[in-house]
Every structure is written in structure tokens, then in C-alpha cells.
């Protein structure tokens, strides 16, 4: 398995596009048939790759979230347009100054061991456990949160040090899972035996996990949403081989596959089978973008004209339509089309080899003098062809490129330590530029130690000032203006050579209903999923 193996699982978000209204309308028109949810049935899914743990506080691998979000829940969920919806919190208020968040929690919620879920659990999770162990959330909580307090048995108050507009987008199970205080407080979180039999509030209860074979969740009979879930249980099969996964889906033992589970060609084949549904919705919260990352510290990539030339030399339409067989969408800038404040009207780099060669001449850099290595981490056959393509196109404009294959560990280590010429990366944008994009370009994030910082070494003081301004701005119109200006600057500087907004398809048997209902189908509890009889 491999580092970015996990992010192969990804799609974009279309903000409140007609599909949404159409879906609602067709549900109405379908009438009683659509309402006849039936109880029963066990849903077969694939754990790919098999995650090490499903305890969401300590592991936010895509694969871990896919499993753990049926057991653990957050205070909120988000619909396809990223609007918050109640989950463990039944209502919430944000003060006008953007500093105080108040949550009213649901009544009658119980942990799987029977103990009641209260504001004390939320306070413990947000105030103590997540700031210590959550890979992403800890940074935001430690930087922005002043205090979190249970002001009543079911009321929670969070105070921030400074306004942080995207904070409200951070309350789903993958980002801020609620953890049981009575089982974790005062223990060593990592070695706590309860990690092997996770206890949450979700619609499904941990039953057993035979590593390498399957993990099994059973229906929670005491689930706090009355009458739910519809399913008797969920089984996550561990099938490491993509061809065997396709067979399992064809045989009907697995009912739903996500993009990363299959090679694109297999997916295109299964998509055409009768009785199979296909969608790329449900990944808006993650919105990953695939880009080529050049090391700006070294020649020839320290020259902006050279970076612009590379952007002209790569045909993003060809990459999407031919190499990826129509999957993904060509990137038009540093923000994915589904990230908030995305602006299309910024400088573009249409495919033009002559323009690329001209730019290189203008730069005065002899690019052939410095042979470079493209460090690759394969995520499947299509990616292998992409690497070959990048090499070919760069060589057509004068570069000398060799491919250097790396496994996940090697890649993470080398990118973390800036030890590369050029490579590719697929970071999530998490729906909001302040959460997922800023970290890749702001100067203070030029640090060693993590592969998801500003590892290319891009620095522009003007951009830095804009990031800081936009992060604390609460007025959406003003934020949009600041981010438009930023996108233009990043595009002019070619702060990364973005290729495509990554699509994350979901393939399901048509009998499986309600599978994709939010901006994060991955971290959905699936409590309303049912089999149509």
C-alpha cells in the first residue's frame, strides 16, 4: 500500500448544482416507492487499503475514516454544498464576532457501552484528546482555540483566540470525532486496549476485525435516531488485489466500490453493467488536487519562466481524457473547482510547446545542463502512464528527466526533507482554502518534517500577507476578493504545477439506496442506507 494510495480515493464538489435539486425532485415524484425503506441486509464494502485502526481521533487515513465513521460521530455533518447539518449537536450558534461557538447536544445519546454521551465527552474530545493526537485538527485547535467548556450537561461552548471562518466546517467525524471520556481520560491513548474494540455513538457497533480478512460492524439497536439504521450490519472486506475486487463486485458480495478500489479501466467496465449506479459526488469536503511539485530551491526550477514553461508543456486535457480515461477534471488554478472561493478568471497556461520553448529561451537557463529526477509513487496503471507522459513532454522542451520510483515511506521521507528535484503530490483541500490550500504556499510552512507543507519552497511576501488577511476575514465577499487576488499571484508564480482536480467515483449496486448524501460520503455514518427489495 502506499502513502497516496489513500488519496486516490477522492472527488470534487459541485456547489449546489442542479443535480441536487433534481435528486430532491425525483424523490418527491417517485412517491411511496422511494419512501419504502426496508430494514435488513448486510452491506459489503472494501477496506482499501486495510487501515491500521478505526479510532478516528488517532488515525485519519481515508481508509480509517471510511470504517470508523460508522462507529464514531461528530457534532455536525455537511450537505453537498458544505452547509452544516445537525448530528450529535442538534443546534449551534456562532457569535457575530466569530469568537464563540455554542452547541446544544442531542438528548438520549448513548455510547455503545450504555453510558450517556454528554457535553463532558465533547469537552474532553475537543479540549484534551484531539489537540494531543489528531493529525490535522490538533494544529487548528492549538493555534486558534482559547477554551472549550461544558456549560451544562448538554451544552458546549468553544471560544477562539481570533476569528477563523472555516472553523464551522471542521465538525464531522473525520475531523472532530467525539470520543468517550470515561474510557480514554487519564490513559495512554495509543496503548489503551479499547482501541481494539472501539466504542462510539454511531449507528453501527464494532463486532470483530480479523486483520487481513474483514472487519464487521453490527446494527446498533439502541441508536439515538429512532428506527435507524436500516441495515443489519456492514462488512469491510480486505481484498488487496484490484482485479479480485472487481470480481467480488461482479459476484455481488461487495455492493459498493470507491474510485481508489479499482483501476480506472475496470471501473469503466463495471460502470456499464446493468443495475449499477455511478457518481463522482460526495467528496466535496476533501477536494484533492493532483500537482507536480518542483523544488524551487534548485536550478532550473528556481526560475519562474522555467516553471511557466513546464505548465505550458503539459496538456491537462490530454491527461484527463486519454491517460485517465475521462476521470478527473483539468485544474485551472491552485484551488480545486469545488473548494470555496475558487476563481476561474486567473492567468491560464494552455498547452503550447512553442510557447514553452520560447519561455525557456527567455529565461536564459540551459535546462538540459541539469538532469533532473522525477520521483514517482504509483497509484495504479494510469499514474504510471502519467509519469511517462510528464517525462516525454519535459524532454520535448529540452529537459533531461529520469524517473525514480519510490514507495510511500521513501516518498514521504524525501519530500519532508526537501530531498527531491520534482515529484507529484495529492493533498486534500478540505473544502476551504484556509484549511487545505494555504498550508501548501505560505512561507511559514516551509518546514521539514511533513510532506504536506510548503515543501517546494515557494515564498512571496505579498501572498503571505493576503493569506493572513483572508484567514481572519469573516465577510464572505471580502474573503472572495482576497482569495481571487491570491489565486492570480500563485498562478503567475506557478507556485505548483497543478494538473487536475481529482475525481472520486462511487460505484454501487442500484439496490443500495441513499449511499451518497453529503459532502463527505466517506465519513458518512450510512445510517439511512437501505437495500431496495
Amino acid at each position, binding site marked *: 500500500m502506499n502513502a497516496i494510495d489513500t488519496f486516490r480515493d477522492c472527488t470534487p464538489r459541485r456547489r449546489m448544482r442542479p443535480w441536487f435539486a433534481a435528486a430532491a425532485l425525483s424523490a418527491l415524484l417517485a412517491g411511496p416507492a422511494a419512501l419504502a425503506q426496508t430494514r435488513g441486509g448486510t452491506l459489503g464494502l472494501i477496506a482499501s487499503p486495510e487501515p*491500521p485502526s478505526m479510532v478516528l481521533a488517532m488515525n485519519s487515513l481515508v481508509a480509517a475514516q471510511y470504517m470508523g465513521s460508522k462507529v464514531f460521530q461528530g457534532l455536525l455533518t455537511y450537505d453537498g454544498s458544505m452547509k452544516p447539518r445537525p448530528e450529535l449537536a442538534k443546534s449551534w450558534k456562532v457569535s457575530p464576532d466569530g469568537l464563540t461557538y455554542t452547541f446544544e447536544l442531542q438528548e438520549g445519546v448513548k455510547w455503545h457501552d450504555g453510558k450517556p454521551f454528554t457535553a463532558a465527552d465533547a469537552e474532553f474530545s475537543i479540549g484534551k484528546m484531539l489537540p494531543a493526537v489528531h493529525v490535522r485538527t490538533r494544529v487548528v485547535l492549538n493555534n486558534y482555540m482559547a477554551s472549550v467548556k461544558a456549560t451544562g450537561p448538554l451544552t458546549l461552548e468553544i471560544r477562539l483566540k481570533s476569528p477563523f471562518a472555516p472553523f464551522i466546517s471542521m465538525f464531522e467525524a473525520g475531523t472532530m470525532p467525539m470520543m468517550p471520556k470515561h474510557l480514554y481520560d487519564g490513559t495512554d491513548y*495509543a496503548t489503551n486496549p479499547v482501541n*481494539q474494540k472501539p466504542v462510539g455513538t454511531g449507528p453501527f457497533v464494532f463486532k470483530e476485525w480479523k486483520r487481513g480478512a474483514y472487519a464487521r460492524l453490527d446494527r446498533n439497536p439502541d441508536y439515538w435516531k429512532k428506527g435507524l439504521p436500516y441495515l443489519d450490519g456492514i462488512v469491510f472486506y480486505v481484498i488487496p488485489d484490484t482485479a479480485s475486487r472487481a470480481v467480488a463486485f461482479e459476484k455481488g458480495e461487495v455492493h459498493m466500490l470507491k474510485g481508489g478500489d479499482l483501476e480506472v479501466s475496470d471501473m469503466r467496465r463495471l460502470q456499464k453493467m446493468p443495475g449499477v449506479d455511478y457518481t463522482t459526488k460526495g467528496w466535496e469536503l476533501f477536494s484533492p488536487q493532483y500537482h507536480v511539485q518542483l523544488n524551487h530551491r534548485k536550478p532550473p526550477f528556481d526560475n519562474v519562466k522555467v516553471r511557466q514553461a513546464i505548465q505550458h508543456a503539459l496538456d491537462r486535457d490530454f491527461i484527463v481524457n486519454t491517460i485517465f480515461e475521462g476521470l478527473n477534471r483539468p485544474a485551472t488554478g491552485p484551488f480545486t473547482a469545488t473548494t470555496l472561493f475558487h476563481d476561474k478568471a486567473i492567468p491560464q497556461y494552455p498547452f503550447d510547446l512553442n510557447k514553452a520553448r520560447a519561455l525557456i529561451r527567455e529565461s536564459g537557463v540551459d535546462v538540459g545542463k541539469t538532469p533532473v529526477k522525477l520521483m514517482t509513487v504509483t497509484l495504479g496503471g494510469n499514474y504510471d502512464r502519467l509519469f511517462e507522459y510528464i517525462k516525454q513532454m519535459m524532454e520535448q522542451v529540452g529537459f533531461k528527466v529520469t524517473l525514480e520510483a519510490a514507495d510511500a515511506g521513501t516518498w514521504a521521507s524525501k519530500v519532508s526533507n526537501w530531498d527531491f528535484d520534482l515529484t507529484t503530490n495529492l493533498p486534500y483541500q478540505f473544502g476551504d482554502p484556509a484549511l487545505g490550500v494555504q498550508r501548501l504556499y505560505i512561507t511559514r510552512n516551509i518546514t521539514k518534517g511533513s510532506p504536506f507543507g510548503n515543501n517546494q519552497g515557494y515564498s512571496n511576501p505579498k501572498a503571505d500577507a493576503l493569506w493572513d488577511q483572508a484567514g481572519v476575514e469573516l465577510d464572505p465577499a471580502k474573503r472572495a476578493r482576497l482569495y481571487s487576488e491570491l489565486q492570480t499571484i500563485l498562478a503567475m508564480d506557478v507556485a505548483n504545477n497543478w494538473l487536475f482536480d481529482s475525481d472520486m467515483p462511487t460505484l454501487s449496486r442500484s439496490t443500495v439506496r441513499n449511499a451518497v448524501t453529503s459532502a463527505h460520503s466517506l465519513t458518512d455514518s450510512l445510517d439511512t442506507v437501505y437495500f431496495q427489495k
Partner: protein
Amino acid sequence: MNLAAFIATKLGKALGVLLGVVVINFFLIRLAPGDPAQVLAGESGAGDAQYVENLRRQFGLDQPLPTQLALYLKGAVQLDLGYSYRNHVPVLDLILERLPATLLLMAAAFVLSISLGVALGALAARTRYRNRHRWLDSVVMSSAMLLYATPLFWLSLLSIIVFSVLLGWFPAFGMETVTAGHTGWARVADIGAHLVLPAGSLAAFFMAVYARLTRASMLEVMGMDFVRTARAKGVTAGRVLRVHVLRNALMPVVTFAGVQLGQLAGGAILTETVFGWPGIGRLMFDALMQRDYQLLLGVFLVTSAMVVGFNFVADLVYRLLGAGAASAGTRGTS
């Protein structure tokens, strides 16, 4: 050398080998770039430098290497193979959970390949010896050649397509039907059905090897003086083949069986991958990719202990069989 001394020497060597395996592997796996903390952060698509540093401290990776090795050895002696922080599970638990699946697959493939292989090889040799049905020899040997040359992953996928997708005789993946809730004999039958395709594919290659080995070795023995003498003395052809020829011809087969067991003990990564078989080979492969040092060392230690054990048994069998064959040979020529 008497048997007790033989066993003591072998055991002493075995312990030395195990210590070597641990120490060499301990340093070897650290030569690969990246560590478990970086991989974990890498997979999450996020993670700042401080987070990675915290993990490293928790994993004990901030200690000097000799200290880490000493701690590991001290634990290993007490059968404590450490904790997989990645999986939040003690290493020994992870290994013991996967070991039965590997042993089952291994035993099935081993028995299948050696019994069928030797039987087919003997059959082929017999047709030559009696000079009847020579076509059978050609059929057996060319089939063996075909199996020998077919890549394992291709054979595995093909067997899934034919026997699972098209014919629906056997399940395509996994070790048992998770949702069926079988118990007792129903469960045994269910696991058996799941075992057929992976064990069959895995056995195919070795079966071919055994068939060729047995046949070649038998043909060689058939030409020896003591066989001619036995025939001259009027011993029936069947008895000559069974007692005089086959028994003496088995030595190379046993030698090779020891090698096969050693290979199987490390798990059959390819077979486990294609059939989703929850064995130790996948565990090792994943641990390597994830730089889960403790788990990887644990798997190396356990599998090499098994290899050493099997070789020990093979040596013992060889010794006993050698003594038996010698006496049979003596009887034959007297």
C-alpha cells in the same frame, strides 16, 4: 554421531541463526528511507513536523539504535515482541492472528503438491519401466512443464475466473463466508471450499517440480544393479517399484520439500494478495511498506523460527529415511 548429539548441535545452530536474523534485519530495515511516523502522516494527507516528532517519540524511535536493539532483544527473549503503535495492537497478537491462515494454506498446498506430484511422477516412471502406455508419460510430463512455466498470479486469476465467476464452484476471495455465521462442520466445509483455489494455485508449481523430480530420480534408480538383481530374483514388478525404486528415489524429493516448506513459511504474498487470504505474507508486506519496524522484525523472527524448525525436521527425516533406504537397498542386493 548419535541422535541426541545431532539434535543438540542442530538446535545450537538454530539459535545462532535466529539471533543473526534479528540483529541483521534490525539494521537492514532501517536502511530504507522513511520511518513509521512519516508514513502515517503521509497517508493521512496531512500532519505537521511536530506531530511526526510526537509519534516518533511515542514509537521509541528517538532512542539511540543500540538501545532500541537491546530493548528489543530483551523483550524477544521473554516472548514480548513489542507493540505495533501503528495498529494499536501488540505485535505477537497480530502475528498469532494471521499464523493459522498461513499454516493452513501452507499445509494444504504442501500435502497437495507432494502427494499429487510424487504420484504423478511415479505413474510416469512406471509407464517407462513397464514400457506400456508411454503416451501417459508424455501427458503427465508436458502438463507438469506447463504448470511449471505458468506465472502464479496468472494461474490464480484464471482459476478465479473459471471456477468462481464462470462455474461458481468455489468462492473467489477470503477464508470464510463472513455473514453466514457457520459453526462446527459447516464452518470447516466453508473454509475448505475457500481453501481450494488458493491452495490449488499455490500447489501447482511445486507439484510440477515433484513430478519431474520423482520421475527422473526413479528412472535413475531403475537402472541400478540392485534393481536388476531384484527383478532377476523374481520380485514382482509392483514390489520392485514401490520398495526398491520409489523409496530410494525419494531422497531428492525430501530435500526439495525442505526447501519448499521454508519458502511457504514466509507466506505466499502473491497468493494471499489475489485471493484475499489473511496470511502472514501480506502482514509482512504491509509492515514493510508502512515501516512498522516492530511488526516487521516480529514477522521475520517468527517465520525464520519456522524455517529453521522445518529444516530441522527435514534433516531428521532425511537421516531416518537414509537409514531405512540403506537397509532396503542392502536387502535388495543380498
